[in-house]
């Protein structure tokens, strides 16, 4: 990972524009639950739904808590699997 670079500029979640420093601040306050980090910071809630940032985030939590990566529970993956336009979704149905 790239923690040697300027910390303030290291973006961990690019969809939601959240830096590594912001995440470390929450983790240092004791928020080491992925579900909680997601809800309080929006990390992993962007258009890619965490496909980019969740693995990085899990590494961070593992490092901070000393737990092995495999023991960090993942958040629930929700539909749809890729972002779809409302117009496309509406297309299949007749409506008034």
């Amino acid at each position, binding site marked *: 990972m790239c923690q040697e670079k300027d910390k303030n500029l290291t973006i961990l979640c690019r969809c939601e524009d959240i830096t590594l420093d912001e995440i470390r601040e929450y983790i240092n306050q004791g928020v080491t639950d992925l*579900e909680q980090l997601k809800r309080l910071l*929006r990390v992993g809630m*962007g258009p890619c739904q965490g496909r980019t940032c969740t693995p990085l985030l899990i590494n961070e939590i593992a490092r901070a808590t000393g737990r092995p990566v495999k023991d960090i529970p993942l958040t629930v993956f929700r*539909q749809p699997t890729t*972002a779809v336009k*409302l117009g496309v979704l*509406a297309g299949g*149905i007749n409506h008034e």
Partner: protein
Amino acid sequence: MNKTADYVIIGGGVIGCSIAYNLAKKGAKNIVLIEKKYLTSGATGRCGAGVRMQFGTETNCLLAKNSIEMFENLEEELGYQDSIEFKQGGYLLLAYTEKMVEQFHKNLGVQHKLGIPSRWVTPEESKEIVPHLNTQGLLGATFCGKDGHCNPFKTTDAYAKAAERLGVEIMTYTEVKQLLAQDGRITGVETDKGVIETPVVVLCAGSYSRDLAATIDIDLPITPERHQILVTEPVEMMQGPMVMSFYHGLYCQQVPHGSFVMGLGDPNEPKEYNFNGSWQFLHEMAAKATFLLPPLANLRVVRQWAGLYDLTPDRQQILGSVPGFEGVHLAAGFSGHGFMIAPMTGKLMAEHILGEETSLPISMFDFSRFARGELFVEPSVV
């Protein structure tokens, strides 16, 4: 782990956290809040995050009005360093039938007596408020600019942090297995981590309150009903108010983050514990939303999820004690509108639990109304 507490609050949603804070603020000590997963893992973290004063009964109008006034100063009151993202962009409630028009005018009458700044708007005026609204078939609407949105995760976090600062102990990932009682009074709760002895239990576990009450033979008339909801990618701010249509069973709001949150009520939903999102919901939601708000067709859905309404027979919460049973207090059955009234509900419940006179009457929400057959009917809910 075996321990004792003066008060055990079951449920780490917005209601439990608001009650915990309000009890502690009034000087109550030795309070433990128990949550089986993480805070906001229940309905609170799954909700539409809308807050409104526009109800049809005086009681609900007052509960909601007081709560919204509390949201206005909540960060300060709770000493929250972060933002609860409170936005007052209003609620536009659409009327499509003569019956709705009549009901909305009645509601306005109730609201105006209480000083709620709501008003009737024509379809043309509705379009001025929401320029991308399709007014086809619309007879008019009511609008209240004080209504809006608030972030449920942050609000709950704010209450929880303030409660902890006042000495409340919050235990997450701890599940209450059963309530313990003897001779008609509460003696404790049994959790998966041991027993906590306590003379007072506050039950605010959403739909699960029914299962917990059943462990001491109290039969709560609460049924879980799945409600689905979705969120789009964030875009530039383009819609101030929540748009809500009881006719379409739909609500849709752009939150301060820029994304649109929207949901539907499904009258045919089976009553059961179900958290799965369905493909039909995506279709139907998209069809209705793009009919009412056509430009939204270009927005991408990034996530859909489901949560439970804890429905009571009259779709109104149960607040208060259980007659003939010492030490049990109920705050459950919010039936889909519990987030917006959490600030005032927490305050009223704390007053009630401590035996004080409540700042607003709560007797119409008591548990025995179902046995007496005195249902409380609120005309203005999805």
